[in-house]
């Protein structure tokens, strides 16, 4: 801590922090800024933060502060004003912010900015939440002597890609957008062009503004220069009602704010006008991905199911809830076997009620499956998941971030962003995967392994750690066995340095995905990661542990409530007599789900018609995340609330209500009337969730940097968190006494011969909800497969050819991309891009036939 003086008052502040930040946080002194943003390095270009600066005079020998006659410290002032944003605090720093000189400087800068800024606040999307407006009101001169006719006239409708529009007149050249894309997102997509008054923002990428985080630039833009195509002129900010919610797509649990308003075109109902980030410094800070921001259109899509459907003479026809319920209840009562597959977007309340229903009609935990069923290892997470209170914001030097079998930017963009920021602060990144991903650019160790040998790669790490005597076995249960098994492992030398870095690090975080591994292998992979963490002592402490890169927003919640991917695998193999598929589309996505047709009676809750509703006997309209309350559990095991934002579409109901009603009819249990009541029951029944009552989840705290409210000038238009920052549940490793299991894992590779098809995850896919956002349609690539140049040559295929890949009886037509980063012998096939189901687990390809030549095919 150091002492600084602001307007004559001394404050104790942490050393090495930014002056603008501490003045705001500790002294409540708002130094106005435009170009400075607390999440980015300062550049000092807008000159709005000019303050008088000086240093306290100290006695040269004793180092004591010299005092003047009044008893306050003597200060040597610098002759010129200095920018506060480029100043790091040091002991004895003094500033004055309330003198005439400073006030005039602020007036001058505002006047300069306004000379070229158009007077179109009445139609500007930022008007009402605009930093330039706010600071003009606060610090502006009130009048200007600039001649109105001398104003610049520039282009006002410049598309930077199809998502973001630039208004050149409004731009004040603060470079926040350029710096965000460059420094934080790692996308070199925006740049300054020209100079002087002609300085302007241009996009330098093809396709333009090619970033998965582009929407964030509109939030941090201090004027209305950048607007989203989605919201452009949608409403005035003060007319919008902000409803706290959670990203329904990713495992990061990004906090969002749904801006809602009544809408004539939607029949006068309340709809989501835009999605904004909601500040949660533990989770997503103030960022969200474009998928989260623009993927909300499914909530009010014209194709939403509005009434229950049931099958009559082989077609689905509309019916009433009563009739549908009656049918379901009859079937469930007499069912010989019952199973359920729960989708990734189901809330904990939905999952709980579904579970209770299945158990009430004779099902067991073995019949509760999750979708997508690609990842296992819930037990491992309970032991060594990332410790409670961890925060990427506090990671930097001394931290090692390991990415295992995951393309993090595609699978969990917010984690990618935060991990990369930690890396920029000094953390070491280790990437283990079968192919290079975007994170490899920032990795100190990029380790390639053969697809299917991920477990072997981790075993190599473990062997290096144990052989090099870097391990601490005091908490490891079963270490002797592991040690014995490791003797047989031939440790690959390439892993030695990374193993040493992991063992020697203060903190280690492991992201474990499932790219290129089967479900069975993934269980081993998670255990293998746990072995490394336990043996190096990187468990149970803040900023240490395992983060599974789950495929859905609430996969963690499903696992906590007893659902497993293994159960899904079993259900797909042997479909039960009565199958409930809630909020997912297995038949349309995964070739392994074709078997589900054999179930006698299929109940589906869905928002849309899908390949799965096509095999259903009863289809129940389900509410989207925006129409109801609930909770999601993030991959960091943070349980977070989302709130009802938009009007209900048709006769749809939330899943929990549907299942509670059905169960009530069967066993006469009391049907819960609110999501909160369901959660109250969960808190009593599930130990980990004992603290997850709605009241606890709604707790908020003061966050730094302060964003939102009147402080929009500072952090951008990210919204203040009023909905709760959520509660994490602790893992067993956090109990220092607890023994942790290390288990030898087999690293046998599959022996099948042939081209291995590896399904990969893309952020922008044709998943049944996301595909409804037409604004993103240009970003969703056509169905394609990546071939290595060697394989393409062998098969006489060219970039752009259409091929038919045969896989275990199913076939899939895709365009091929010859990609040098793909290892020979492997085809990577992104999931959910085609209308045909594809593989969800790696498998050997059957025949591959060319169906169309490159040129004819590229038209798509």
């Amino acid at each position: 801590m150091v002492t600084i003086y602001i307007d004559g008052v001394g404050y104790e502040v942490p050393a090495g922090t930014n002056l603008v930040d501490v003045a705001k946080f500790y002294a409540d002194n708002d130094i106005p800024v435009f170009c400075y943003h607390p999440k980015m390095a300062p550049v000092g270009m807008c000159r709005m933060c000019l303050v008088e600066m000086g240093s306290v005079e100290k006695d040269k020998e004793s180092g004591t502060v010299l005092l003047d006659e009044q008893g306050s410290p003597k200060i040597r002032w610098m002759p010129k004003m200095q920018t506060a944003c480029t100043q790091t605090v040091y002991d004895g720093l003094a500033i004055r912010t309330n003198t005439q000189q400073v006030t005039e400087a602020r007036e001058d800068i505002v006047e300069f900015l306004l000379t070229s800024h158009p007077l179109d606040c009445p139609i500007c999307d930022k008007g009402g939440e605009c930093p330039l407006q706010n600071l003009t009101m606060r610090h502006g001169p009130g009048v200007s002597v600039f001649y109105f006719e001398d104003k610049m006239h520039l282009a006002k409708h410049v598309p930077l890609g199809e998502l973001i529009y630039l208004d050149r007149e409004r731009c004040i050249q603060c470079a926040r957008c350029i710096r965000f894309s460059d420094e934080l997102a790692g996308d070199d997509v925006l740049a300054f062009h020209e100079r002087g008054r002609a300085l302007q923002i241009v996009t330098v990428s093809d396709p333009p503004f090619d970033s998965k985080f582009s929407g964030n630039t509109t939030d941090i833009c201090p004027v209305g220069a950048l607007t989203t195509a989605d919201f452009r002129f949608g409403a005035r900010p003060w007319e919008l009602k902000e409803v706290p919610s959670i990203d329904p797509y990713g495992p990061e649990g990004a906090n969002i704010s749904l801006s809602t308003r009544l809408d004539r075109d939607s029949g006068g109902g309340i709809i989501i006008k835009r999605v904004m980030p909601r500040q949660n410094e533990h989770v997503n800070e103030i960022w969200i991905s474009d998928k989260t921001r623009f993927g909300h259109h499914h909530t009010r899509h014209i194709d939403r199911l509005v009434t229950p459907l049931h099958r009559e003479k082989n077609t689905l026809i509309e019916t009433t809830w009563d009739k549908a319920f009656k049918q379901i209840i009859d079937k469930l009562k007499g069912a010989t076997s019952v199973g359920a597959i729960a989708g990734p977007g189901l809330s904990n309340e939905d999952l709980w009620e579904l579970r209770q229903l299945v158990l009430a009609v004779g099902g067991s935990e073995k019949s509760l499956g999750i979708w997508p069923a690609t990842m296992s290892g819930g037990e491992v997470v309970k032991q060594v998941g990332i410790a409670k209170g961890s925060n990427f914001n506090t990671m930097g030097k001394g931290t090692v971030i390991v990415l295992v079998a995951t393309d993090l930017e595609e699978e969990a963009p917010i984690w990618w962003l935060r991990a990369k920021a930690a890396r920029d602060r000094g953390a070491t990144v280790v990437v283990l995967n079968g192919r290079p991903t975007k994170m490899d650019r920032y990795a100190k160790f990029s380790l390639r392994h053969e697809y299917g040998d991920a477990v072997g790669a981790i075993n190599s790490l473990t062997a290096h750690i144990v052989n090099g005597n870097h391990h601490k076995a005091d908490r490891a249960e079963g270490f002797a066995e592991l040690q014995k098994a490791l003797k047989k492992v031939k440790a690959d030398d390439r892993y030695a340095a990374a193993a040493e870095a992991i063992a020697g690090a203060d903190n280690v975080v492991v992201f474990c995905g499932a790219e290129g591994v089967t479900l069975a292998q993934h269980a081993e992979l998670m255990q293998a990661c746990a072995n490394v963490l336990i043996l190096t002592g990187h468990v149970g402490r803040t900023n240490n542990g395992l983060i599974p890169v789950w495929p859905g927003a609430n996969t963690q919640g499903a696992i906590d409530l007893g659902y497993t991917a293994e159960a899904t695998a079993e259900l797909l193999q042997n479909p039960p007599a009565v199958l409930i598929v809630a909020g997912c589309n297995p038949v349309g996505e995964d070739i392994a789900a074709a078997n589900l047709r054999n179930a006698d009676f299929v109940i589906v809750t869905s928002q849309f018609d899908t390949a799965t509703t096509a095999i259903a006997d009863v289809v129940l309209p389900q509410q989207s995340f925006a129409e109801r309350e609930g909770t999601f559990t993030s991959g960091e095991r943070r349980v977070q609330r989302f709130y009802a934002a938009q009007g209900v579409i048709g006769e749809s109901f939330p899943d929990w209500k549907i299942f509670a009603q059905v169960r009530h009819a069967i066993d006469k249990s009391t049907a819960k009337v609110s999501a909160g009541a369901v959660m109250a029951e969960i808190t009593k029944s599930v130990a980990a969730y004992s603290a997850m009552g709605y009241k606890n989840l709604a707790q908020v705290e003061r966050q730094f940097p302060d964003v939102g409210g009147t402080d929009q000038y500072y952090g951008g238009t990210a919204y203040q968190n009023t909905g709760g920052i959520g509660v994490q549940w602790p893992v067993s490793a956090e109990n220092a006494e607890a023994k942790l299991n290390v288990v030898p894992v087999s690293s046998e590779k599959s022996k099948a011969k042939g081209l291995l098809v590896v399904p990969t995850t893309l952020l922008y896919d044709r998943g049944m909800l996301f595909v409804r956002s037409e604004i993103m349609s240009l970003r969703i690539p056509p169905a394609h497969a990546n071939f290595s140049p060697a394989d393409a040559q062998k098969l006489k295929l060219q970039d752009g050819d259409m091929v038919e890949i045969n896989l275990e009886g199913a076939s899939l037509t895709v365009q091929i991309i010859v990609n040098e980063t793909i290892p020979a012998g492997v085809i990577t096939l992104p999931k959910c891009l085609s209308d045909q189901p594809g593989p969800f687990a790696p498998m050997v390809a059957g025949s591959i036939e060319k169906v169309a030549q490159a040129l004819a095919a590229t038209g798509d």
Partner: protein
Amino acid sequence: MGLINGLMTTIKHVLQEKATFQYPEVERPVRERYKGRHALKRYDNGMEKCIGCALCAAACPADAIWVEAAENTDDERYSPGERYAKTYEINMLRCIFCGYCEDACPTEAIVLEHEYKLSFTDRRDSIYTKDMLIDPVPPGGQDTPHQVEPHSYDRPIPDMENPK
């Protein structure tokens, strides 16, 4: 004496001009600055003055105004700026005719005119839509939307200046 005084008053008033009007046959003329029903104005070429900024709605103390905006294109241009009012409604039951909307309007698009004969038989009829509020197209003008040459309108708001 009292009686005479009373009669005098009566006679005086009988001789005076009548203060009442035989409404609805005869209508009382209103003052120049009378604030009656709103009208949405047009430019001489028929283009709408309203740019859909919703400042009138923000200024309205009775929450009577509802605006939804949309973007002009060169093929379908309603107003000279970038944006126009796609939906513009005033609930006349709520309106208190204070004229704040007129003050708030940056383009002088909304004006409280002299029309005061507002009556409805249904609550829903009290909502005046844009079609009902907007002035007729002036002679020589053309009804919106206009199809215009690209880039002939590139200002966000027409004629907006510093407050003098």
